[in-house]
C-alpha cells in the first residue's frame, strides 16, 4: 500500500508538471502547433513502446471499429491541446489550467445525455459548480480586461507582443 502512495504522488507531480511546462512553452514563445506536434509525437511513441515492450497487446490486432472510434477523439485531443496553448497567450496558467481540467464535466454530461446514466445529488452539484466556476472565471477575465482598458493596456500575457 505504501508503494501506491508513492505512485499517487508521482502521478500528481506529473500532471502538475504538465501545467508548468505549458506555461514555460508560452514564456519561451514556443509555437503552439509545434508544441502539439512534439507532444503528440512523443506520447504516441511512448504508447507504442509501452504496448510492445510489455507485450500487453492481444495477438489478434486492433479491430477496425476500435480504430474508427479512436480517430475522431484523437483529433479532438490534438485540437484541444492546440487551442489551449494558443489561448494561454492571453491568460493566466492558474485559470487556464482549471478551465481545461473542468472539461472533464463534458464526458460526464454526455454520458448522462447519451447513455441515460443516473444523476445523483453529488454529480448534479459537481456539474452545477463547474458552471458557476466557469462563469466566475469569465467574470474575472472580463473585469481584468475592463481594468486594463481603463489603464490603456492590452489584456494579454506579458510574454506576448503579437496578436493572434
Amino acid at each position: 500500500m505504501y508503494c501506491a502512495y508513492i505512485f499517487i504522488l508521482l502521478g500528481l507531480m506529473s500532471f502538475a508538471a504538465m501545467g508548468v511546462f505549458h506555461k514555460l512553452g508560452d514564456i519561451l514563445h514556443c509555437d503552439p502547433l509545434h508544441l502539439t506536434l512534439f507532444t503528440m509525437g512523443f506520447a504516441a511513441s511512448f504508447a507504442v513502446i509501452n504496448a510492445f515492450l510489455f507485450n500487453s497487446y492481444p495477438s489478434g490486432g486492433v479491430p477496425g471499429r476500435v480504430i474508427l472510434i479512436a480517430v475522431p477523439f484523437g483529433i479532438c485531443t490534438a485540437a484541444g491541446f492546440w487551442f489551449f496553448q494558443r489561448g494561454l497567450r492571453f491568460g493566466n496558467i492558474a485559470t487556464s489550467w482549471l478551465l481545461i481540467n473542468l472539461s472533464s464535466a463534458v464526458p460526464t454530461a454526455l454520458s448522462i445525455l447519451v447513455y441515460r446514466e443516473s444523476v445523483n445529488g453529488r454529480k448534479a452539484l459537481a456539474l452545477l459548480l463547474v458552471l458557476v466556476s466557469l462563469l466566475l472565471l469569465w467574470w474575472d477575465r472580463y473585469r481584468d480586461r475592463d481594468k486594463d482598458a481603463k489603464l490603456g493596456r492590452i489584456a494579454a500575457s506579458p510574454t506576448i507582443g503579437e496578436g493572434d
Partner: protein
Amino acid sequence: MWIRLMLIAFFINGLSPFGLRILADLGLASQHTRGYLIFWYLSGLSFVLVLFLRAPRRPTLKEILVGAALGVFSVCGQTFLGLALARGLAGNVVYPVTLAGGLLIVALSGVLVFKEQIGKVGILGISLGILSLALLSLS
C-alpha cells in the same frame, strides 16, 4: 480572445475521453484500451502533421524539449495513476487527489513562480473549480 479559445479547448478537450466510454459500452475496453490509445495518439499526431505541413517552419530546440517533456509527463501521469489503482488505492482517492491536487500546485506556481495576478473572483472560481473536480471524480 482568451475566453473564446479556452471555451473551444474546453469542449473539444472534454469530448476526447468520451471515446473510452463508447469503447466500454461496446465491451471492447478491457481488451483493446492500449490499442485504442495508440491509434488515439497517432490520429492526433497525423492531424497536427497535416496542419504543420501546410505551412512548415523549422521547429526550435526549445519547442522539441518542451513538447517532449509534455509528452513524457502526460504518459507518466497516466501510468502512475494506473499503478496507484492497481496497488489497491480506491478510485475515489486517486482521482480527486491527482486532479484537484495537481490543479492546486499549478495555480500556486502560477502565482508564486510566474507572478500571475488573480483577482478575488478568480480565486473564488479556482476554489469552486477544485471542489467541483473533486466531487466529479468522487461521483
